């Protein structure tokens, strides 16, 4: 166990050193790191609990996705049957599908054929599953049922999450924060992590808005108050102003949808100096807007955002230039945020915040200090105790542990892992545990010495027998760390990572470095006694 060939010894030393050196970029300032070649830029990332920031878990409202998909299906059915000139009645949404009754029995096959065309394979061109998004059934007696398949809905939700991630990213990028992380989590969730944010309220306000913008006409057939008391006309609905006080009767028909916007910028009204949002339409939007304003000069139209009326100005003259202005008694930040939302586009479905964890920068710095103090104290206690207990061999153990910690930090840097406060706790604990491998070896050497073996023989046997035990005992902890990694989130996962890496480096140092150090000592000093 004590024999090392020259190249093997060098390999061990070089490997340990190189792994330790990966720590260096984490110790340099960010400016210096940027000058390094990209391969060497890997560095430790401080977790949100250390540098401060917000962790926000959003959920895509899958019921809204389902509902929207059902409504779209109903409209498609109506359109298809009208185009095919098939007479129908009782077109309704039933559960997870739509049903319709064809009036003439003779037209049922034609209707069925046309409606079947609505059903498309899921997954586009690469659809290998053979799954379709709609199931069309003839329930007899002229009744046709179109049901959304679970597979199709799941696919739609997945698409909605993908689109949402893209839009959330665009919105957050506008805030100009450093390194935000936006990830899909599970089927219908998005995890947003934004470090170093002073006030998450604005971020949450930006994320909480669907930002579905429409331009519609105000229905002047009756006052809104009357519509509230009786019933609004079928093609109109009552919407409120942003403060929720003023009701408006607004036509359901959309003049121009928000998708036709190509740009939105905050600005000031040239006359009133109020903050406004200036916007520009694309060609088709500009054409539709021009036609609509031309037709309705003198009538009010409404700018509706997420079912709230932002403003309802009267059209004074046709707007043909394809650009316009939204004024709605905004604050400067309000105008700015609306412009961001409009530029980023509308979310396919509302997002709900289901978990939020925010750490202010003050607490983060305190936690860093606490972690560093604990690490120093823990290491100092262990170092002193090991020397007092094992003397020179204690010093060897401390050397191995120091390199061990260096390697943990090196690997964490190399992986670009996130260091959290529990992660630091994991490192401190590893120091306590890493010396265990040395304790096992030394105690075994002592036993072999007591059994009357020569120093070299005792050291050799001590290593051989202790290493098997070290392997067994560390693997159990490694299993626990692995499980923790998979179930843990955020800071706890940081603990699992450092714990797991700590076990690997402990095994490495126990099997190679400690052995090498002792072997070199034996070769150079030719000891007559072993001072354990």
């Amino acid at each position, binding site marked *: 166990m004590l024999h090392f060939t020259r190249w093997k010894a060098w390999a061990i030393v070089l490997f340990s050193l190189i792994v330790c050196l990966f720590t260096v970029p984490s110790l340099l300032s960010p400016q210096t790191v940027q000058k390094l070649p990209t391969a060497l830029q890997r560095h430790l990332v401080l977790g949100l609990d250390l540098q401060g920031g917000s962790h926000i878990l959003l959920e895509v409202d899958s019921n809204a996705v389902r509902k929207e998909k059902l409504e779209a299906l109903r409209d498609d059915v109506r359109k298809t049957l009208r185009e095919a000139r098939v007479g129908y009645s009782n077109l309704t949404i039933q559960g997870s599908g739509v049903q319709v009754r064809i009036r003439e029995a003779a037209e049922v096959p034609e209707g069925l054929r046309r409606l079947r065309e609505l059903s498309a394979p899921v997954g586009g061109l690469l659809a290998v599953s053979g799954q379709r998004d709609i199931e069309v059934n003839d329930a007899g007696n002229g009744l046709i049922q179109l049901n959304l398949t679970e597979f199709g809905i799941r696919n739609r939700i997945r698409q909605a999450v993908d689109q949402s991630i893209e839009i959330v990213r665009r919105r957050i990028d506008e805030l100009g924060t450093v390194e935000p992380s936006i990830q899909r989590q599970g089927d219908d969730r998005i995890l947003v992590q934004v470090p170093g944010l002073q006030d*998450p309220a604005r971020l949450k306000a930006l994320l909480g808005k669907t930002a579905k913008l429409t331009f519609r006409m105000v229905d002047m057939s009756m006052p809104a108050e009357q519509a509230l008391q009786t019933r609004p006309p079928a093609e109109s609905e009552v919407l409120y102003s942003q403060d929720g006080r003023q009701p408006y009767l607004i036509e359901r028909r959309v003049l121009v949808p928000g998708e036709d916007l190509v740009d939105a910028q905050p600005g000031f009204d040239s006359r009133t100096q109020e903050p406004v949002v200036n916007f520009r339409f694309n060609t088709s939007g500009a054409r539709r807007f021009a036609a609509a304003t031309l037709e309705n000069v003198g009538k009010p139209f409404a700018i509706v955002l997420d079912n709230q009326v932002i403003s309802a100005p009267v059209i004074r003259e046709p707007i043909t230039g394809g650009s316009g202005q939204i004024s709605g008694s905004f604050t400067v930040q309000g105008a700015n945020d609306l412009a961001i939302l409009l530029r980023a586009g509308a979310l396919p479905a509302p997002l*709900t*915040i*289901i978990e*939020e*964890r925010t750490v*202010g920068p*003050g*607490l983060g710095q*305190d936690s860093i200090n*606490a*972690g560093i103090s*604990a*690490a120093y*104290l*823990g290491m100092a206690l*262990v170092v*002193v*105790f*090991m*020397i*007092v*207990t094992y*003397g020179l061999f*204690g*010093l060897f153990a401390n050397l191995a542990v120091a390199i061990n910690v260096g390697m943990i930090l090196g690997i964490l840097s190399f992986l670009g892992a996130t260091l959290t*406060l*529990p992660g630091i*706790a994991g490192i*401190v*604990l590893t120091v*306590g*545990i890493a010396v*265990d491998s040395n*304790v*096992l070896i030394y*105690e075994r050497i*002592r*036993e072999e010495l*007591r*059994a*009357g073996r020569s120093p070299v023989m005792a050291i050799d*046997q001590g290593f051989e027998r202790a290493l*098997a*035990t070290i392997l*067994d*005992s560390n693997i*159990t902890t490694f*299993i*626990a760390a*692995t*499980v*923790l990694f*998979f*179930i*843990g*989130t955020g800071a*706890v996962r940081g*603990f699992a990572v450092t714990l797991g890496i700590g076990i690997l480096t402990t095994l490495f140092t126990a099997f190679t470095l400690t052995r090498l150090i002792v072997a070199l000592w034996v070769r150079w000093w030719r000891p007559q006694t072993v*001072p354990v």
Partner: protein
Amino acid sequence: MTTQAMIFLGLGIAATILCLLVLFGYLPHLRIVPDDTKFNFVRFRRISFPISAALSILALTLYFTHGLNFGIDFKGGTLLEVQSKAGPIDIGEMRGKLDALGYGEVQLQEFGSNGEVLIRIAQQPGGDEVQQKVMTRVKETLGDNIEYRRIEVVGPRVSQELLGYGTIGIIVAIFGILVYLWFRFEWQFALGAMIANVHDLVLTIGFMSIAQIDFDLTSIAALLTILGYSLNDTVVIYDRIREMLRKYKKLAIEDLLNISINATLSRSIITHVTVSAALFALLVFGGHAIHSFSATMMFGVVLVGTYTSIFIASPILIYLGVAQGRTAHLEDIEEEPAKPAAKPAPALGKPAPQPSPVKR
């Protein structure tokens, strides 16, 4: 230089001198456990088993009556850590303001002397969005004179899932370790370790119930780590027992277990000192964010873990029928047969802690 810094400097110098004295041989090495101890640990099973059974039942009873102090991770709700920008905080006034919001019981916990307060508000009925509103209203109520150091809002579904994952995680970990030990040892060892393990977890949960430690995600981390470390200890002793089983073919199991425990005793104690040192540092300096984690670990690893490996995990092997048919006691054995096939000659023949009756 502050007094605190002076104290640390003094301690540092003293520790350095101590280390140098030991290194240059002016002081003997510290031996916490004397060599060649011969405690009859196994005999204590007649005391330790009933005590452990009683404690486990007590812990379970506490869990079901007293309950765990579930944090917002598992119960949902809102947690705010605030610090007054203008010195000490009038906690009564703050409580009055928050109670007026009508969110049921609001827990306020003051710590430190800088006007730092931890506010906990239970989950409000009505789904995820309501929890966000609670936070906004608390912020409006407390006003601008407050720095928000930490805000956590966990909705009902997330907390349910976290609790589910935590429970599944612990079960998966226990099962995974069981399978590993089964491969590496015999099934009796795996089962023995498992019983010891569950015993550790049950007692630790009992401790958390008595101490009303916040049970949150870091507690799950603590429990899993306790699982890993206490097994680490058990495995070291089991390894030795297995080695002894191969070496002594006839020796009665009680004696064999005693020899194994005594042989690894020094290591167990020393390792626990180093782990305690690390945990002590975390407990003192780690800040309150990981305070409950450190406290739980201290209890689970240092107190329960050691006790379990020595007094539960090892003696239980007797009842699980490890190496049945061993009846001979030390006195009856004339000479241990060496087993040349297992290891090269010099390794054997002289078992480390020579049982004294054999020499006779």
